[in-house]
């Protein structure tokens, strides 16, 4: 990854080549500076799992992880992510195996229309890495930047609890083994 400072020239810098690691894979493209990260992911890279919801920094459907931290990709330019690592919903499953959060959403029916789901799952995965055994209140606080219009959040909370249990019992099993 070339994250070296590019020389400041007198040429207008309205296009740029960016390089970033998306879901573990190096990606590179020449793009307009005004291209939002969400459009870079969806249109330049074809990763349409990241959704454009409100497009006004309110709904969280476009949430991705930048260097592990959840951010709203409609409120960041792709050039800002140059040299950095991005994880989208396509990067949650590893080696064909669903992430515990994905399993949780499946088992507990944590979605109906599925539009908010990518953002909900990425925020939940980040939460469980910081706090493997969150209370219901902590889960609701963590997902408070993500809007769901179908479920009333009940099953989303259950899905995250399911994932927390699964992750912990998995780790316990590993420890015993």
């Amino acid at each position: 990854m070339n994250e070296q400072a590019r020389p400041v020239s007198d040429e207008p810098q309205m296009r740029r080549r960016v390089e970033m690691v998306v879901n573990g894979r190096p990606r590179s493209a020449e793009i307009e500076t005004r291209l939002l990260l969400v459009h870079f992911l969806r249109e330049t890279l074809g990763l349409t799992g990241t959704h454009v919801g409100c497009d006004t920094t309110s709904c969280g459907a476009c949430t991705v992880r930048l260097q592990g931290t959840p951010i709203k990709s409609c409120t960041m330019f792709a050039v800002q992510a140059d040299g950095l690592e991005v994880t989208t919903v396509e990067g949650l499953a590893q080696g064909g195996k669903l992430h515990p959060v994905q399993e949780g959403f499946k088992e507990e029916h944590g979605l109906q229309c599925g539009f908010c789901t990518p953002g909900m799952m990425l925020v939940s995965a980040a939460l469980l890495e910081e706090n493997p055994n969150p209370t219901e209140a902590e889960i609701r606080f963590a997902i408070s930047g993500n809007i769901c219009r179908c479920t009333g959040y009940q099953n989303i909370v259950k899905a995250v609890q399911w994932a927390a249990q699964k992750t912990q019992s998995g780790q316990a099993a590993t420890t015993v083994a």
Partner: protein
Amino acid sequence: MYPAKFEYFAPRTLAEALSLLEKYGDEGKVLAGGQSLIPLMKLRFAAPRALIDLNRIEGLDQLVEEAGALRIGALVRTKACELSQLLHDRFRALGDAAPQISDPIVRNRGTVVGSLVHADPQGDWGSVMLAVGARVEARGSGGTRTVTIEQFFQGPFASALQPDEIVTSVVVPDPGPRASGTYLKLERKVGDFATVGVAVHLSLDNGRVRRAGIALTAVAPTNVKATKAEEALAGAELNDSSIRNAAELAAQAAEPRSDLRGSADYKRHIVQVFTERGLRTAAEAARAA
């Protein structure tokens, strides 16, 4: 929504950022968290010719205590404030405000200094900084100058910052012993702007108020100090009568406008209720501090 075209720079040093800003003048905009600026650019309320991204400059993300005072660098995210034990223990108004600002994902990115520079009268950090008497440090081609936060806010979305200046940090003075504060915010839902917010800071001396800071969000053309309420409390004993009196004076300092979030009368009433509640909370914490 697509913003207008712009030139993008990601300088590695503050000197480089300042020279770019000098070159572009008021056609250049400084980008930190971008959680206010980028939405404005998408709506084309802002269309800078050049965007100068501070995020690659080292050393601007310091949240540190310096001889009892608190320094918040230009790249300190609101999330860092939310997690800070130092803020919770010694700068309580800040610590209480942080988790109430916007939503958790925006807090991961949005900065304290960026919020102040944006100078939105509905911004929460502005009131907190007025209550605690913060100072803004601005670096320009001519050197560094310090501006009190009261002088900094000039009008809605207007600050005392010159086009060639960058705010490098905001400094909160040492609150001293027996001091605490809080922030109360009424919002319709997470992520919405405040209907009303009240920041309170108190320091006590022998049971009397040494200094009181009270500032209001979303009820005036800028974040605004409730100066008469602060003056009435200074030197006074904190009791039901002085607290109620200060809350009434704070409500009088509000100039709210009726809108979809509530009527002017309602908002003024909330200022009174929140000021009273905030003073009681801060007093209890300051006595225990």
